[in-house]
């Protein structure tokens, strides 16, 4: 139907000639294909209708095509992620305080000075950072564990069809779809001391609290408020992934287990969980990284600055950078955080992969 189209005539010819070395099954592996044809090009030339210039252009195009295809993505990734990261590392080695931000060239090079200042646990900033780190570890552990547990229970109980199942599944996914700020602002309203729902239920309706209405967004309780919001926002993603993972478990396996007399609990531990292992490996890592780096939840819930009890690492770095305009120290903390996360990820992948091989 496209007779006379210049490109049409070439492709079948190329694949026919290349069939000895290039499998016809993979005709689009452009780079090896072209390199192979370069040698034999003069022989084939007279039989082609296209001019040499056209052919060269086409050959160049197919050789560089994959690179041209990834170029925009690669450019953006480099410009917005890689370069800022390198700049960040460089910034962490400078004394980049408010006096030098206008002109970086005047910022003195201090080497690892920022690192030793921030990571020194005896100094004031070091203590604050360590405290924030501890809070973040606790927050992440609890949030990921509870979210995973919620996601798993819901996914398992939603496996069996019943009336209203689709509706329930849709409802459960809503927190994931809701914009972060809308969800967190609403929770902020729920946690208001006088006008909020939480105190109304706990104090007025259930009478669980004696005396004063507790504050939820300042003081000790703020950590738990933050945790509740985090779980509310996170667990639907666990549900989504685990549901997807459960679809790959053949029903015969459950039936076989049931015939063998395995009860509900036994089916979970010996069929469901082992089948979910590959999903869980990725899911837990992703949840860990997202929660550990969480900035949005505390930022919106507490309106910019978190109380010390809920001072997560991201918001700690943010505040110590922008309140004092000391970007050198802030960058040093960010880089240290990145190194920590890389280390945890590497160790995690090493352990889980080894266990998978041995299992």
């Amino acid at each position, binding site marked *: 139907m*496209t007779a006379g*189209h210049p490109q049409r005539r070439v*492709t*079948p010819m190329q*694949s026919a000639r290349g069939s000895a070395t290039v499998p016809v099954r*993979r*005709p*689009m592996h*452009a*780079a090896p294909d072209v390199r192979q044809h370069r040698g034999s090009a003069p022989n084939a030339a007279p039989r082609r209708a296209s001019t040499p210039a056209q052919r060269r252009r086409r050959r160049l195009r*197919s050789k560089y*095509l994959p*690179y041209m*295809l*990834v170029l*925009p*993505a690669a450019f*953006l*990734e480099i410009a*917005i*992620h890689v370069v800022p*990261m390198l700049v960040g590392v460089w*910034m962490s080695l400078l004394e980049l305080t408010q006096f030098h931000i206008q002109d*970086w060239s005047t910022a003195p090079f201090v080497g690892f000075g920022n690192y030793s200042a921030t990571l020194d646990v005896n100094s004031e900033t070091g203590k604050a950072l360590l405290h924030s780190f501890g809070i973040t570890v606790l927050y992440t552990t609890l949030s990921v564990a509870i979210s995973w547990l919620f996601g798993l*229970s*819901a996914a398992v109980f939603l496996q*069996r069809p019943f009336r209203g199942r689709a509706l*329930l599944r*849709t*409802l*459960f*996914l*809503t927190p*994931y*779809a809701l914009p*972060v*700020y*809308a969800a967190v*602002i*609403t929770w902020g*309203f*729920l946690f208001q001391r*006088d*006008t909020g*729902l939480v105190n*109304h239920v706990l104090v007025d309706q259930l009478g669980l609290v004696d005396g004063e209405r507790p504050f939820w967004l300042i003081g000790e309780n703020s950590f738990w408020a933050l945790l509740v919001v985090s779980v509310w926002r996170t667990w639907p993603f666990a549900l*989504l992934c685990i549901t*997807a*993972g459960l679809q790959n478990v053949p029903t015969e396996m459950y039936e076989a287990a049931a015939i063998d007399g395995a009860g*509900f609990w036994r089916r979970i531990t010996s069929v469901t969980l082992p089948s979910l292992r590959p*999903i869980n490996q990725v899911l837990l890592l992703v949840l860990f990284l997202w929660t*550990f*780096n969480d*900035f949005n939840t505390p930022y919106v819930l507490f*309106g910019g600055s978190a109380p010390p009890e809920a001072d997560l690492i*991201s918001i700690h770095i943010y505040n110590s*950078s922008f309140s004092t305009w000391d970007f050198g120290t802030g*960058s040093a903390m*960010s880089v240290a955080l*990145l190194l920590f996360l890389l280390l945890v990820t590497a160790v995690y992948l090493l352990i889980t992969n080894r266990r998978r091989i041995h299992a």
Partner: protein
Amino acid sequence: MREGRGERIARWIVLTFLAAFVLTPLYVMVSSALKPLQDVQDYFTWFPSTLTFQAFVDMWSTVPLGNYLLNSVIVASVAAVFSVVIAVFAAFAISRYRFRGRSVFSVAVLSTQMFPGILFLLPLFLIYVNLGTAGGVDLYQTRLGLVITYLTFSLPFSIWMLAGYFDSIPRGLDEAAQVDGAGSMRTLFTVILPTAVPGIVAVTVYAFMTAWGEVLFASIMTDQDSRTLAVGLQAYSTQFQVYWNQVMAASLVVSVPVVAGFLALQRYFVAGLTAGAVK
């Protein structure tokens, strides 16, 4: 396989608890938006004393919500469209070609997704500011700067998801098109894209949601004119008194489009996620 009695009771308890947990804030958001002001200034009540839509009227004048909404729509739409277009090409290359640097590219792209946002924030902030003062390229506190930033944020996951989707399209289809004389680009546009519509839809929704909901960069990189909803909505609480009914009404209005979009396309989204994740 029959469901045991204990299992049924457990299912009932767990699902009821989770439904109540998820539903409570959503209910409060909707019911408070329908309350008159004095209701939300007093102790909490489960039901409005009178139903009123006044909050939906007043919310536009308390803060310039219209501007914020417009900024968010522009930024999120443009970022989503460009993100998907760029991701389609990159995912096509990753899925259908073996080229030098392919695995480095895929790993690097995905791992940036996992890095702390705060790590990019400080340098990017200074780069944008300096590009403006030295190079005359206005990215700081402009919508263009936000678009570029957000589209890069959604790129890694979009590429990853789409590459998984393209992988699941049989190569036989490509070859048939090749035999018919279609070039690489023709194959992409006439064979792969029509087959991958669900994946592309899912990625578009994902990219839009990413830009629509981002808070960290929006809080630093915007000024009064370019402010998006993520920051703008918090402006209600800096007023002399907090109009919680208006805050809830505004939250509802900005949530409905994305939630509706996501839930309507949920099947495709899950399919796209599964294609990328499960393999």
